[in-house]
């Protein structure tokens, strides 16, 4: 497609473990700048491995990955921010210190750090909770801190590895909605991994469905629901049909 700027381009990506186990097979997709893409698939389909490769944290056996038009041979936090599952905050740092962590690694002066971390806390709706330690925060609040930490360096691309998997269903829906609100104010390109079908349809511009090992992309589904999304859209026919289509695809794979 001429004229579309791709934030992420993956071409012919394959990965083999220990020379024998094929984890990912011939994966190709691209994500236009500013779009929200969700990758959904059964556990063990290699979706987390794929995300690690997009983040430059793991090398692929074959194929190319371009991020903002350039390969990503190693972690590059200015280009790609990663948001992990719940337990990844440092328990010995306060919320605001956790958010500052990426900046402090680069030697950003303390004043600047505090200012930017404070702005992030506000963005994720946690103003006033900066001095709390992770064990003093609820699961949803911890994940807000984690999102703030991923956003603090203002990378154009955000990768999220099942960030809400450990949360209860209600908190999970609220956090998804919150994420869309934050995303709409920041215009990031997001790749979001989940195994929840509802979450996938609710969040995505496009859903990529992966098969069980070896992981392949077996379906691409554009989600035509308007933005901003609202909870009552889940009751619509369109929503139900899309979720059902993903389920049928996943169910087919052994």
């Amino acid at each position, binding site marked *: 497609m001429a004229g579309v700027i791709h934030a992420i381009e993956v071409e012919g990506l394959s990965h083999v473990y220990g020379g024998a186990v094929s984890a990912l097979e011939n994966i190709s997709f691209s994500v236009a700048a500013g779009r929200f893409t969700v990758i959904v698939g059964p556990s063990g389909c290699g979706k987390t491995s794929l995300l690690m490769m997009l*983040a430059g944290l793991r090398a692929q056996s074959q194929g190319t990955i371009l991020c903002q038009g350039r390969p990503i041979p190693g972690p590059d936090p200015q280009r790609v921010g*990663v948001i*992990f*599952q719940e337990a990844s905050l*440092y328990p*010995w740092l306060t919320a605001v210190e956790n958010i500052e*962590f990426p900046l*402090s*690694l680069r030697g950003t002066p303390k004043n600047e750090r505090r200012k930017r971390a404070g702005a992030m806390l506000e963005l994720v709706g946690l103003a006033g909770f900066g001095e709390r*330690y992770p064990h003093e925060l609820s699961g949803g609040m911890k994940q807000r801190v984690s999102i703030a930490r991923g956003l603090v360096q203002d990378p154009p691309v955000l990768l999220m590895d099942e960030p809400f998997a450990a949360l209860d269903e209600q908190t999970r829906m609220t956090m998804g909605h919150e994420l869309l609100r934050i995303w709409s104010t920041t215009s990031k390109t997001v790749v979001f991994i989940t195994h929840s079908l509802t979450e996938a349809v609710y969040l995505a511009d496009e859903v990529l469905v992966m098969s069980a090992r070896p992981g392949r992309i077996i379906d691409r589904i554009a989600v035509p629901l308007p933005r901003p999304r609202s909870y009552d859209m889940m009751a619509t026919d369109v929503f139900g049909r899309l979720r059902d289509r993903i389920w049928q695809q996943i169910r087919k794979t052994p």
Partner: protein
Amino acid sequence: MKIVAVRLALLALVLAAWELLPRHGIVNPLLLPPLSDVLRALGDQLLRPQVHEAIAVTAAEVMLAFAIAVPLGAALGVLIAESEYLGQVFKPLLFYVFSIPKSIFLPMFILVFGISFAQKVAYASFTTTFVVLMSAATAVESVKQDYLLVARSYGATRTQVLLRVYVPSMMPLLLEALRISMIFNFTGVMIAEMYASRTGIGHLIAGWGENFQMTQLFAGVIVLAAVAILFNEAVRWMETRVSAWRA
């Protein structure tokens, strides 16, 4: 508050029993001299130059052995926890050796070093190194992979990963290890001194025991107990300060 009151009452009860039971002949005062006699003996002993020298020697042995064993054990522990190869080779072997009572090696230390200051230090650091090594390896393994992945994804260098993730994450376990290894270290020095020695608190205590000087013996026990508890509590205090986030 109530708990503290009960503890103090219990302590008072024990001390009172220590004083009164031998005083009234309910317990043989030759085996357990009354507390006041022991405290008087303690006061007398603390004035003797021979005791001063013994305390100085023991303290030097304990501190030197500790100063050798802690960095040595920590370095070896980190090494076998970090290197998969070294871990696979040495961990089972170390577990075997760790399970052997170390005191059976004491005669060998005497043969090599003679009955000397060096022998006490060598034996105590030998026993302590194992404890530190095991604890350090456990502490390294306690650091969650997620923590390392986060740091790497934000572009942390190796040094930053070490100082900003490993050290704070391991600190509570390391302090606990320090405390426990000091117990082993102190025990090592005492055993070495009581087994064969010319000076040191352990030597004095062993001598008092052999000569049936029970008041002196108990006075020595009080001194040792006080020093050991003091060190233990100091490290424990640091532990609670460093691990507030663990609540």
